[in-house]
């Protein structure tokens, strides 16, 4: 079934995208003959890390090969618009009143040019590069887990075979080493689906961000919106599972001396700050780890081109060292991909376990 799925994806990709893929961008060729493009490290790194309205695959000579992605915006001024992002490159950059702002508050985002010249940012529902990568990774996760689940349903008592043997140790690891010790033997099963989903979502998206060619390479978990939503899931689940003693102890913990609670409620303030700080730190930790890893790996890689600008032989010479460093950073990134998924899941389990604790005895 995986073979059927992947072959159908490949056929769909070939049929729908190849004609557009071959339609290269000729305007860039004209601009580049006027002044040869100098290598800009910052641009290279930030283009790989940021979201964009098209998926840039390669630059061959002066032509850019990219997959155009649909742009769907709803403007308060002129209603619903749907078009492919290649239209934003035709003409002088404006299509139907919309353009990608090149500076100001809405830099690199789609804005509508009003008749008096000001910019209006519409409701942007576009399928950008990150959203496409999200769909691809969702399809991958569903394929893996639905086939594993079907195998468990059909041959329950047999030895694991195929992709089941990859997934089973990880699932058992999360169940036995993360969920049970943190949440407790009685209630961990209720939270196990969430913990497994979060772990595999973060792990597989981290890994896909490391693959340098399509459909990988979109920095999804390095997007702070995605990590913020994951941390908000943890926050909501923790808050809704909070037992009575959890909330009461936050404001009035019987174990701490009175001068910390009155006249200035120091401990309650610290505890309530902690409630909001924990998801925030989860967000920042995942986002910064993944993005910083990508920046460092790309920085090592662009050393070659920086040195080549000075002299072509310096470029060749530094390439050995640079490739060695990049490979090392890539391996470190693989480790970080797993560790960050593990730490996010572990901390979520710990917070849920803390919220579920029932204090049975007070002094």
């Amino acid at each position: 079934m995986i073979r059927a799925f992947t072959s159908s994806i490949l056929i769909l990709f070939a049929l729908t995208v190849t004609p557009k893929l071959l339609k290269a961008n000729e305007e860039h060729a004209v601009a580049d003959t006027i002044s040869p493009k100098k290598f800009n490290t910052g641009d290279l790194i930030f283009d790989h890390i940021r979201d964009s309205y098209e998926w840039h695959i390669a630059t061959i000579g002066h032509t850019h090969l990219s997959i155009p992605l649909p742009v769907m915006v709803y403007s308060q001024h002129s209603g619903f618009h749907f078009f492919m992002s290649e239209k934003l490159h035709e003409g002088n950059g404006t299509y139907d009143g919309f353009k990608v702002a090149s500076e100001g508050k809405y830099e690199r985002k789609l804005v509508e040019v009003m008749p008096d010249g000001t910019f209006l940012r519409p409701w942007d529902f576009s399928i950008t590069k990150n959203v496409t990568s999200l769909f691809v990774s969702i399809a991958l996760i569903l394929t893996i887990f639905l086939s594993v689940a079907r195998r468990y349903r059909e041959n329950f008592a047999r030895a694991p075979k195929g992709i089941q043997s990859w997934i089973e140790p990880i699932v058992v690891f999360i169940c036995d080493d993360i969920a049970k010790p943190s949440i407790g033997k009685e209630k961990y099963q209720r939270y196990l689906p969430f913990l497994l989903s979060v772990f595999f979502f973060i792990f597989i998206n981290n890994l896909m961000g490391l693959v340098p060619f399509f459909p990988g390479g979109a920095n999804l978990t390095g997007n702070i919106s995605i990590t913020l939503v994951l941390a908000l899931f943890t926050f909501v689940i923790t808050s809704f599972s909070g037992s009575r003693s959890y909330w009461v102890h936050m404001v009035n913990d019987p174990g701490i001396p009175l001068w910390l609670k009155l006249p200035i409620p120091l401990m309650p303030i610290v505890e309530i700050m902690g409630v909001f700080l924990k998801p925030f730190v989860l967000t920042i930790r995942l986002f910064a780890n993944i993005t910083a890893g990508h920046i460092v790996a790309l920085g090592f890689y662009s050393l070659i081109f920086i040195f080549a600008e000075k002299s072509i032989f310096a470029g060749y010479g530094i390439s050995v060292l640079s490739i060695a460093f990049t490979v090392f950073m890539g391996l470190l990134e693989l480790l970080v991909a797993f560790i960050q998924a593990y730490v996010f899941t572990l901390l979520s389990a710990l917070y849920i376990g803390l919220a579920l604790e029932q204090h049975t005895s007070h002094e």
Partner: protein
Amino acid sequence: MTLAVILQVAANAAIAKMGAGIGAGLAAIGAGIGIGRIGGSAVEAIARQPEAVGDIRSNMIVAAALIEGVAFFAIIICFLIFFL
């Protein structure tokens, strides 16, 4: 007097970038010291009790990841100073 004021206004952006660089360096020092201490204690604990290697290793990695989170928070602030 006016020269000093003009110099200060002109140097504002430059001093901000220098501050960002120093902040990032300090964050790296802090993370290095913290994780170095964790690694040292973990290795000593393994030497004392070699059969607890698995437990000690996972606790060490968890503690290192938490400290790295704080260091990355400082890095993000320095990044924002640089580019905003």
